[in-house]
């Protein structure tokens, strides 16, 4: 496998977990840029061009809620997981654990 193909596979793997990562970080409300930073601190670097459209999509799917607030003369949009998203997260976690354990068996 070439280095390029390897990077593409890694990228695809990461893309698959972004939704779950974002939902998990939004159990406490955050604005977009602080979310980018908290994901980065947790080890997942995500570009704003990917994150913001994703946040809008998750909101339109009812998994997130948002509201604009003005802080220090600057309007910021705060996102937080919705009741629907909160109910979905344990199921996603269960699915994820299943995938990890399945892949563990397959790879060993």
């Amino acid at each position, binding site marked *: 496998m070439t280095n*390029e193909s390897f990077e593409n596979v890694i990228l695809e793997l990461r893309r698959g977990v972004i939704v779950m990562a974002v939902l998990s970080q939004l159990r406490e409300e955050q604005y977009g840029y602080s979310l980018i930073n908290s994901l980065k601190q947790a080890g997942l670097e*995500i570009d704003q061009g*990917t994150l913001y*459209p994703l946040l809008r999509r998750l909101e339109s799917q009812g998994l997130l809620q948002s509201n604009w607030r003005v802080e220090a003369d600057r309007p910021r*949009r705060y996102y937080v997981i919705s009741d629907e998203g909160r109910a979905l997260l344990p199921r996603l976690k269960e699915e994820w654990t299943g995938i990890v354990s399945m892949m563990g068996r397959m790879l060993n």
Partner: protein
Amino acid sequence: MKTNLIERYIAEIGKHLPIKDRADIQKEIRSTLEDMLEERSRKVGQAAEEEIVVDLLKEFGKPEDVAASYLPERRLIGPQLYPIFSLVSWIALPTLAAVLLITLGIGLFSADLTPLETLKGIGNLLLQVGSALVSAFGSIVLTFSILERVFGTRNIKVKVKGEVLQHMPGVMFKIEGEEISWNPRDLPEVQDVEKFSIPGLVAEIIFTIAAIVVFNFFPQIIGFGILHDSDWTFLPLLSEAFFRYLPFVNALWGLQIVLNLVLLRQGRWEIATRWLRATLLVLGIVLAAFMLAGPDLVISTPGTLIAAWPNLSTEAVRVLTLIPRILVKVLLGLSILGNSAELLKALLREVNNLNRS
């Protein structure tokens, strides 16, 4: 200067976004850029210089790519061609509908038909127009989906984790050695944005079409109706002089509809639409002035009134002769004043924009 660059960048992104979400997305991008800028200034320990802003914007991505990332994937017609597709549809379909309704409508109403036959005729007319519109829309979609396949948006590049990626439907592929080469300093200046109300434009289109239909096909309903001995007698008001002006009025109204449709589609004023608006305002003033100074536009003279209602009192004849004339003159006068004020405002805005750039 740095704020100006950010505003130019955000304005440019807005040009590629659908009007519905434009303001909200722009607000969020502005807020994020300010956060990022603040953090970078803190890191270098100085206020954000233009150079920092330029680097930040370059990293954020080309305006059209940033906008494209907000648009849904897997489109029959992608974000690059969508604005043109939408503009063509917005102009072609209403124009086709108007032309068919007018040409078929003239044939229908000029024929000597019973009420039932007229009703059937109207049903057939609507079916014909509907089918023509569906067929025309299908052709436009087909043409643009072919154009999309040939010149489409499969090569949009986005950045993930600082790497340039090619954005394919559903998948992203990295392109080796590609670099982002665009200069935020080349962004066009932000113009003084003139707001307009979408419901206002739609209402204006509807009322203008209604006016075209009434003045062209049912002018006889503009007049007086008087109940006398349980019988209604109706006297149409518009004179022959008015009908000599009607083609010019129609042309202005038609162009006004086109202007409103283009504004609805583009969601902002462009150079072409501003010129068209100014031209329409000037022509409107000239036409209203001619109509005001020319022969009477109404035919309610004492002679015609008494011929229609022989028992009308002298006082009633005087009032009915005078009121329509005064009303027409007041309306034309108000139209001249309103158009002049709007023209002046538009000119001042242009001067401001010229000074700014």
